[in-house]
């Protein structure tokens, strides 16, 4: 009887795909906190309370310099937010975090309190990929969480296919790579070969703290501290793992498909 059952179910439930990006974005869990913001003017002179509590060494404060928080290394444990005596590091609740340049994730310098969000590809690449992007996913030491929250974009709730974005089974069919994991030494060759097998022009997306900078494994002899040590990266999506909406936002921002976003958010 499953045929009648499933048809009834579908009629009853209707379309379960979210309205985003035309409508509002799904709300982050209230304990998530979203992106971080660093207002170094609030820091007490010489205070380094946040530096030793960061598990991934994402925070540094050199003598006489403002504190620097690298959101690429951040795993969003909020230990720094909790310990900061002057509320210089705060959570903004914003799900948008993807950037085009690695340095755009470093927070703290004057005028750089927050991430400098990704801008779209140039006109030529946007014409090529804007309405049809095929990606090959390479997990290179990923723990399966970034993979899972990338995979979820293919489910009915998110329906990545409606943007013309699809994961494919061969690098030969792909326009680019989506990389997760710190890139272990043991995956170095496989990643290089996969990258080489994608026809140019091609793009590379690094998803998660590991793929951006090694994450919790930064400095291990067995890993490469991020995808951009092996291949050039066009989009960095922070998180451990990034929430699916953060990944989707990054992809759409890269493809220049978010013209309506601000209007919808208002």
């Amino acid at each position: 009887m499953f045929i009648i059952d499933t048809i009834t179910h579908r009629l009853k439930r209707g379309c379960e795909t979210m309205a985003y990006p035309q409508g509002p974005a799904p709300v982050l869990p209230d304990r998530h906190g979203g992106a971080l913001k660093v207002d170094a003017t609030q820091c007490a002179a010489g205070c380094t309370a946040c530096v030793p509590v960061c598990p991934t060494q994402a925070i540094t404060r050199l003598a006489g310099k403002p504190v620097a928080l690298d959101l690429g290394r951040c795993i969003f444990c909020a230990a720094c937010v909790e310990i900061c005596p002057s509320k210089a590091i705060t959570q903004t609740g914003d799900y948008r975090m993807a950037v085009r340049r690695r340095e755009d994730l470093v927070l703290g310098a004057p005028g750089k309190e927050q991430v400098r969000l990704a801008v779209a590809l140039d006109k030529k690449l946007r014409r090529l990929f804007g309405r049809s992007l095929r990606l090959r996913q390479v997990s290179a030491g990923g723990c399966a969480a970034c993979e899972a929250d990338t995979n979820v974009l293919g489910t009915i709730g998110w329906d990545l296919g409606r943007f013309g974005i699809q994961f494919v089974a061969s690098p030969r069919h792909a326009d680019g790579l989506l990389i997760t994991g710190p890139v272990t030494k043991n995956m170095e060759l496989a990643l290089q070969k996969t990258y080489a097998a994608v026809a140019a022009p091609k793009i590379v997306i690094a998803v998660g703290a590991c793929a951006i900078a090694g994450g919790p494994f930064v400095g291990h002899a067995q890993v490469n501290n991020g995808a951009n040590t092996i291949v050039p990266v066009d989009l960095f999506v922070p998180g451990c793992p990034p929430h699916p909406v953060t990944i989707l936002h990054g992809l759409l921002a890269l493809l220049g498909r978010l013209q309506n976003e601000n209007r919808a958010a208002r």
Partner: protein
Amino acid sequence: MSATTPFALLANATSLPWAEIPAWPVAEFVHATATELNRGARFCAWFGVPEHSGTCLVAVLAFDVDNTLAVGRSEAFTGAYPALTTTHPQAHLFEREVWEQHGLTPAGHPWLKPVRRTNEKGNAPANGEFFRVEGGEVHEVAVGPVHAGVIEPGHFRFQCAGEEVLHLEIALGYQHRGIEEALRDGPHRATMSQMETVAGDTTIAHATAYATVMEALAGTEAPLRAQWLRAVALELERLANHTGDMGALAGDVAFLPTMSACGKIRGDFLNLTALMCGNRFGRGLVRPGGCRHDLDAGRAAQLKERLETALADTKQAVAWFWDSAAVRARFENVGTVFPAQATAIGLVGPAARACGLVRDVRFDHPAGWHRFAQAPVAVWPVGDVFARAKVRSLEIERSGDYLREQLTAPAEGELRGELAPPAPDTLAVALVEGWRGEVCHVALTDAAGRFRRYKIVDPSFHNWMGLALALRGTAISDFPICNKSFNLSYCGHDL
């Protein structure tokens, strides 16, 4: 059985001084271990501890029927020892690992090759030679390391005669991040987040095992409230993964209604974990000494309400699946692991229970909240894809019932207690039944209370051989459903 063992006994989630662990010359130790395995014990962990200029072998065994664990060790030695694998295949990967890590040669091991070591060029695992079947009609299929999906890497080498798989060899190591090595002299600053990412879909189980080890070394346990929260989060983790796998199995036999529904419901369960701690995979929830986030009454009520909806949706989606004769026919008598094989290779978790083995840490070795509240063990005979799917769907129901019960009667009290520094020269063991099976953490401290050795055994380490055996005599086109029915962790194996 355990009453007469010469091994030192301890319960799950406890510790004992290193000096109290009996030590034998290695040949006698291997013989003693074999004797215990012969009378019903099974392997939890087997690892080396460097001592003076040699290495001691340590065995952690489980006597499931007696609800007790047993530990023994060899005296420090170098060179070779008589392999246990020749008589007890469940040791095969452990002995390869000890050989790779410490250079101790298990003499007579039938397939001694690297587990995760990097090759000479430093850019791929040293896979070594693959097993080959010779013959004019035989062909070889190589798959991976990069797979055709959004999934972790590993290499599969099939020896086939036509469609039929004669032998499958699984070569892993691609995900090796050096977790155990980094734990030496720990815990370190990054240790907690590394524990949460040993296998990212098993965050709660690994984090709980680590926290439990730290508590056992401190001679205490977490407050009951925290134990309860961990138990709730553990079942949410199980629900999310089992539901996702039911959807994936449906997808692999092109049964789209269940695939579509379960893909979404999996996310609903993950969002419940996020409701507890902000992270869909439970990162930041479990900490040594307790938990970091509480479930206040309002949040618990919301959790309960959303859980009921998700469970009802799952029930319906899974019912379609079992209702379809086409699905049942596709799963029956495919990828069978026989109970005798399951026992011999030491399968754990749903894969073992699908072979009729009653093997569940929550029941056999209850620790934490499971001492007070248990879920019935879900068992199914036969050992095929159908049985593994069936056990998953039974566990979805039982985890749901467990959570319903637990959410009506929460433990009260403190969320987190102070933790004393780890005791020196002490060995602690924690087993947690993750959704894939037994997660085992063993810590040995040095004179200063730092980690002298930390051993992690993910259930996948026991179970990959099960997938290889399931493929024997099966059509290669059935690999996807066999693989999904196990859904093992690559990074949990590779560490």
